[in-house]
């Protein structure tokens, strides 16, 4: 059962024992898949560079390569037709994160949708809506129906922290929260 070690001093060495030990900075160009758990060390786990999304008053198709596994920053929208589509997952574990990049409350409507429009790929789970100009109840839960809802609408966005994680090629689980002054318009719906 050979053990492989690498150090900058000795290079690659095979010795008795098991496992692989790399004592060096490692750069991987391309995807890295680990079938077991991943334990970061003292340096912790950094995040990928965030992406500031396009704010044009149109549909923006997000991609797995450019937007998945990252924090996507939603800027103030240029109109009420701003739509971000999430690509259909090819496996469980695909992940998209959204936060707000607003300086002040937006005054437009934003949608996050699946690419499919027939409900075949849909949202499950629930998020919180915090109504920032309400003097009574300020927080409500917003539910996806888990069967056909494939659109999340947000109006007058002020802040958000939204997570979309695929459980299969058809089901996204969603969690997080949205703050806005227009709570009634935050909703899951059908295309």
């Amino acid at each position, binding site marked *: 059962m050979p053990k492989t070690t*690498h150090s*900058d001093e000795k*290079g*690659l060495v095979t010795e008795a024992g098991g496992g692989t030990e790399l004592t*060096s*900075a*490692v*750069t*991987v*160009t*391309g*995807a*890295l*898949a*680990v*079938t*077991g*758990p*991943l*334990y*970061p*060390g*003292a*340096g*912790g*786990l*950094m*995040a*990928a*560079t965030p992406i500031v999304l396009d704010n044009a008053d149109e549909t923006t198709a997000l991609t797995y*390569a*450019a937007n*998945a*596994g990252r924090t996507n920053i939603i800027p103030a929208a240029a109109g009420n037709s701003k739509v971000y589509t999430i690509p259909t997952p090819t496996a469980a*574990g*695909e*992940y998209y994160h959204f936060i707000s990049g607003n300086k002040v409350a937006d005054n437009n409507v934003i949608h996050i949708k699946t690419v499919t429009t027939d409900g075949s790929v849909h949202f*499950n*789970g*629930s998020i*919180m809506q*915090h109504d920032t100009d309400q003097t*009574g*109840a*300020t*927080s*409500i*839960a917003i*539910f*996806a129906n*888990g*069967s056909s809802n494939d659109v999340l609408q947000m109006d007058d966005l002020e802040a958000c922290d939204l*997570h979309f*994680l*695929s*459980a299969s090629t058809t089901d996204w*689980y969603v*969690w*997080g*929260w949205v703050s806005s002054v227009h709570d009634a318009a935050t909703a899951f719906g059908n295309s």
Partner: protein
Amino acid sequence: MPKIVYTEEQGLVQKPGGGISITSSAAEFTGELSVVGAISPGAGGIMKPAPVILAVTGQDHDLTLAANGGRTNVIGNCADDNVVYILPDPLAAGEYYHFVSGVSAADDQKFHITTKTAAAGVLFKGSVTHHDIGETAQTSTAVIANGSSNDFFELDNHAAMSLHFLSLSTSVWYVWGWCASDTACTFADTE
């Protein structure tokens, strides 16, 4: 000072210099990967492992590091008030469990998350924000573990949540996040 370079064209090559560079469409580690330094993802970001849909029947459910650790665990509508999810005692600092709601309407049952070792052997520290969706005035409160004996978390009628449990040692879990329901969540001691 040898440098190891791997490319799909040339295979493994040892060169002058230091470090390890792997250029491949898909590098795969089978087994556990522990990194002493930082992990910095590139353009593809960091995906997540597939989420786990937890059983919701009224009994004790022992979670495991292998099946549930490092993952998002989805709690749906519970079958009754006696659903208990038991965190395995941490073997080391850094073990992590994440819980979200997978409900399509507010639940009408309770669930509990407890440590495996009762009687303060392994306990909870930290706090979560509870959003009371049945309240008509102030809706958000901080719910704080006592840090000395609480090893039991209860949430009744959950509507939405994102709860994180991270081990500081083999005897302490730090808890943070938020949850929403019409009844305040609580930390307590195992009865």
